[in-house]
């Protein structure tokens, strides 16, 4: 009996020791260095501590701890990074599961912070607000994070990140309750602010030799001219292989091509969009402009100008199968070589944006917002809130911009001369893969495109022929970019909830109607069109538009 009691006591003792051992190591507030050390302004803590960071990881990314950028940041700040890497394809699912286990929340959600999560969970107290003057979390009285620990970010915010745009950084960062739950993700690199439409200039020239009268790619100004070129691609033999295998225009499920053609009739996005006169917000698929777009696409499909496989192409690789066979006249892609391969890459040039006979206003091109409140959120409860704020501030600064772009100065890239007007990327000799493959070993920016500040002031100075060409080709769109709905429109939780639910059932419906109109030639006049409009209303389009219009007016007022 005695033996037994002894054993039990011993077991409890062991368990108790075990538990205390497993518990969180105690946070030491004195370990934090608010403004670095005299010889290292980037140092954040005296003794090394680990912070937990939750990140999205794309298929082409190596592990975050192996990336040059984080090795460097860890070295200079004294922070060790304990990454939870989540596959981008399952990111939302995992992210929602993380909240269940509140004892083990990360100290930072880096990149991919959804606005819906902030709207829903922000008011429940899930996040630390960056602009809360009374912020206390995890027993640490941190106060206003931006004022106290993020001087770089503060200056950038006040200066609108030096970007000349109607968009307002501060308003975008602030949620409807006045709180900034997320730090901004900022992008002002023209080649990443829209998509690019390519057309084969060589084919145009070939056809001219054959007697066609066609404009140069650079002179295609209207959708009618574009159609004329596509028709010539179809009837002639521009790829000179003697076979009628040319596909005048191809697209991955109409993605971007839709926006490109729609824009020539006056709107850039098949959902909510601000009217061109700024007087309010309209649901584009219910407009005459959208009807014209459908008519055009249906005609192109009927006449064989549009790739008949358009709706079953799901990936760029499938598009590239045709591109590399030299069969595509026109397509949309981040860069021509991705679709056409190195062999035919040089034949393609960007063109547009277009207008049309029925829309003669300023040309429009769908633009992505410069600012989005998705960069970084700090879950409530972490004592490391000040350390995280410092880390983020460094990432917004010059060093951070360089690291997330192309790695470390003089190791991975170097200025070409004293004027610092250009720099060259240094890929080690004997590197077998592509440039992007190498860049993936440095930064998570490859594949996921994530960055806190993707700054053209640095990125645009890269001295590389292909990138330079890409930059130049992208600049033709720069003056015409239109963000459909300003990113600083704020909805209340209820409004958000309602509009999300409407959108969830509306968008598959719309996707299919588009297919019916284009592929199955449903008439865009008379009864079928009226039925379509009334169906849209059954999906509560009016209510949807009203919610956003109210928010849009609030924003201006």
């Amino acid at each position, binding site marked *: 009996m005695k033996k037994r009691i002894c054993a039990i006591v011993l077991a409890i003792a062991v368990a108790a020791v075990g538990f205390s051992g497993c518990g969180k190591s105690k946070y030491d507030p004195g370990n934090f260095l608010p403004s670095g050390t005299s010889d290292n302004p980037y140092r954040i803590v005296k003794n090394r501590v680990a912070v937990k960071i939750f990140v999205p990881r794309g298929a082409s990314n190596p592990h975050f701890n192996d990336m040059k950028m984080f090795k460097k940041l860890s070295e200079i700040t004294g922070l060790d990074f304990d990454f939870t890497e989540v596959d981008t394809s399952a990111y939302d699912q995992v992210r929602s599961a993380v909240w269940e286990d509140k004892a083990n929340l990360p100290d930072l959600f880096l990149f991919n912070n959804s606005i819906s999560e902030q709207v829903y969970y922000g008011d429940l107290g899930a996040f630390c607000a960056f602009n809360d003057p009374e912020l206390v979390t995890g027993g640490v009285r941190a106060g206003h994070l931006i004022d106290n620990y993020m001087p770089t970010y503060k200056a950038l915010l006040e200066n609108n990140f030096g970007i000349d745009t109607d968009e307002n950084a501060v308003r975008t960062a602030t949620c409807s309750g006045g709180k900034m739950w997320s730090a901004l993700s900022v992008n002002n690199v023209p080649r990443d602010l829209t998509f690019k439409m390519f057309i084969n200039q060589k084919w145009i020239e070939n056809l001219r030799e054959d007697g066609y009268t066609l404009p140069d790619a650079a002179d295609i100004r209207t959708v009618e001219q574009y159609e004329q070129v596509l028709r010539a691609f179809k009837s002639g033999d521009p790829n000179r292989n003697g076979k009628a295998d040319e596909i005048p225009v191809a697209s991955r499920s109409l993605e971007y091509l839709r926006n490109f053609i729609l824009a020539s009739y006056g709107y850039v996005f098949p959902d909510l969009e601000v009217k061109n006169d700024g007087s309010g917000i309209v649901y584009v698929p219910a407009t005459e402009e959208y009807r014209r777009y459908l008519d055009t696409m249906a005609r192109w499909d009927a006449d064989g100008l549009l790739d008949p496989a358009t709706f*079953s192409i799901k990936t760029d690789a499938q598009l590239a199968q045709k591109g590399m066979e030299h069969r595509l006249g026109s397509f949309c892609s981040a860069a021509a070589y991705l679709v056409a391969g190195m062999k035919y890459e040089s034949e393609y040039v960007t063109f547009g944006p277009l207008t049309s006979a029925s829309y003669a206003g300023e040309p429009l091109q769908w633009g992505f917002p410069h600012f989005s409140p998705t960069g970084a959120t700090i879950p409530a409860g972490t004592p490391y809130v000040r350390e995280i704020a410092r880390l983020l501030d460094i990432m917004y600064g010059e060093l951070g911009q360089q690291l997330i772009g192309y790695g470390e100065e003089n190791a991975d890239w170097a200025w070409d001369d004293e004027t610092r007007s250009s720099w060259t990327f240094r890929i080690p000799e004997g590197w077998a893969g592509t440039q992007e493959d190498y860049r993936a070993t440095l930064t998570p920016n490859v594949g996921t495109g994530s960055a806190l500040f993707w700054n053209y002031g640095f990125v645009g100075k890269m001295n590389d022929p292909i990138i330079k060409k890409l930059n130049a080709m992208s600049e033709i769109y720069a003056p015409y970019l239109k963000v459909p709905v300003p990113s600083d429109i704020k909805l209340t939780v209820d409004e958000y909830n309602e509009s999300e*639910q409407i959108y969830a059932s509306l968008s598959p419906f719309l996707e299919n109607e588009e*297919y019916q109109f284009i592929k199955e030639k449903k008439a865009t006049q008379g009864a079928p069109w009226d039925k379509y409009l009334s169906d849209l209303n059954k999906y509560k389009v009016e209510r949807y538009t009203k919610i956003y219009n109210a928010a849009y007016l609030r924003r201006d007022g």
Partner: protein
Amino acid sequence: MRNETALPAKKSGALKKSGRRLLWFLVPSAVYVVVFHYLPIGGLVIAFLDYNSYQGILSSPWAGFKHFAAFALMPNFFTILKNTLLISVYSIAVNTVLPIILALLINEIRVKWFKKSVQTISYAPYFISTVVVVGMLFSFADYDRGVFNAAGRLVGIPAGNILESAKWFSTVYVVSGVWQGLGWWAIIYVGALAGVDQSLHEAAVLDGAGRLSRIRHVNLPQIVPMAVIMFILSVGNALNVGFEKVFLMQTGGNLPASEILSTYIYRVSLMSKLPQYSYAAAIGLFNSAVSLLLLWIANFVARKLGETSLW
């Protein structure tokens, strides 16, 4: 048969004890069934909450029948319900009848090695995974390189992609399902036919019955009761099967015909940016209720028409 009471008292006691000790065997599987079957049934309570991951089951706010109402009022409610029922009815009808025919056919093959080979071949597709079968469909249906269009060209059918078409979805689903499962589903009928009493055949021959009439009057009645049971079971499971395959086969073009209850549940929960678990659970509960109703109806009809039924 031995009579238990005739055993000596001590031994009978041992037997009784053994029957109780037998319960130990059930522990692992019972734990499994409680955790993965009964617990989720209890978890259906979230259908009546505004469940969110941040607050958890215990503190999420009460929502009542809000989610059921929201689903019923959705414009595509009837489309989804119709798709679910149509795909189920179509496959059940085909999958109940064809295996019987195949079994009757195989049973008539008199050359042993040939019979065996046909059977072996007939099972093969059953062992190929759903993912691979759907992958095959996508490759075959590919607009530019698919074998369907290549074959269509030979007989002058205009090119297209059947996986994009809402019209063809249920047929593609059922036909590929038949290809995959026909041989396998015929197994138990083939077995039953092998056990048919030879004297019945002899009597029929004496009455001057030919092969066809013997199939109709001797073989068929032998397997009908079994087919009825299989039918009822498949009706009971009608709404629960097929998620994987339908989900994998979905494309933008066929969605009006391919969105079924279970794929919709997946879409609004695990596939969504902010998962609506409660809404999804409410639809799931609705799905189960419809399943039970169908099972009851099938059983009722079977009992009215014949003697075979589940209960």
